[in-house]
């Protein structure tokens, strides 16, 4: 009765004009800001955070899911210089991840094809 719609855990709430990602610059710390990503969870947030840690321009990066029943992620990013904004660093990280996923896809397809050839499994279908 009180339970929220399950689909809202991964779909943006159109009625309330929810945006996927918002940014708030940090007032007390220089070159830092917090990104609020709606309708995401650890799956993507941890991935992006680890990729950002590999970037030498990044001074601090951390994420938190404020409450497990509220589906959003707050990610705080701080860079070393004011020339490179946190947004830039974030978009670079996601681009790199996208490229890595592409590479994973091609290598997986190749590996599966190679295994199939080596094992000559003809009847992969189903019996009814």
């Amino acid at each position, binding site marked *: 009765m009180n339970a929220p719609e*399950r*689909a809202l*855990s*991964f779909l943006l709430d159109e009625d309330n004009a929810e*945006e*996927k*990602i*918002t*940014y708030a610059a940090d007032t007390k710390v220089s070159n830092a800001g917090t990104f609020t*990503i709606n309708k*995401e969870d*650890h*799956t*993507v947030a*941890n*991935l*992006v*955070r*680890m*990729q950002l840690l590999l970037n030498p321009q990044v001074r601090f990066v951390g994420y938190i899911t404020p409450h497990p029943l509220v589906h959003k992620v707050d990610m705080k990013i701080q860079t070393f210089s004011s020339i490179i904004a946190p*947004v*830039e660093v*974030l*978009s670079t990280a*996601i*681009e790199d*991840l*996208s490229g*890595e*996923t*592409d590479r*994973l*896809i091609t290598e*997986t*397809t190749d*590996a*599966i094809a190679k295994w199939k050839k080596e094992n000559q499994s003809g*009847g*992969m*279908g*189903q*019996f*009814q």
Partner: protein
Amino acid sequence: EIKFILTETDTSVANALRRIMIAEVPTLAIDLVEFTENTSVLNDEYIAHRLGLIPIRYCAPDSLRGGDCHGAFLPHRECVCYEKCPRCSVEFDLDVNFDRIVNDRPENERDLPFTITSADLKSNNEFVSPAHFLNPEEQNESHDTGISIVKIGPGQHLKLKAIARMGIAKEHAKWSPVAVSTYRFDPIITINEEACATLTHEQKQQLVDVCPDRILELDEASGKLMVARDAWETATYTEDLRVTQTMMKKREEDDDFVTVEHNDDKFIFSVEGTGAMDAEEILMSSLRVLKERLNYLLNSVETLKDM
């Protein structure tokens, strides 16, 4: 079921892949059930719940493999139809009346309850059907003709129409394509040659025997301790080895004879599907879902940059 090795990436990638395989790969499952007749022992919503959990298999027109239904169907909320249409859903019919089928059964079984199974679900889409047995041997061994739904007796009749839609497990667990999706770290087993030289043959044999996974071997010719060839696959438990080694060491601070640590870079994945999709298809689909998510996020960040 497949087992594969993922290398040169971080744990976060392995975990993201695992989470997507469990929760975000789209599959088909029965979502809406209309009952015309139900005089069985289970009530309507119970049977509807059971029907929802049956894995539904989609085979693309040109292959026998349980494939990814993502391209062939639209999620219902994106479809323009009112309730159902061939574009977003598949209809299943089930009509079993005990009194009508009793004559088809063998003489000695006529008064036993009849099990209505997933084999009785007839779909209106030739490429979609409930998941069935893998091969003839399994079907012959099993007592059932499929996944059992309910058992009916004389005078009982079950007639219903079920509509299957595409969804992801985040909305309801019935849409999850995997039974098990796990990964573990690849072990690095190093043998300290100098320390091993101080051991007697019996002690080395003891080290080989104490480990339940048998990750070590004793080389016949040289009497040296070696890592077994398939150790990477079987090594899961090393406590016994450690305890025996501490007992054997002359002093506490001596180096270990054999050390087993996990390799942060290499993961051994094990994925077992429910029958709705072949395991390789689950893997490819999860990679595709990850890519779409990242692209969506990238576009959102780009709009943020312009502001």
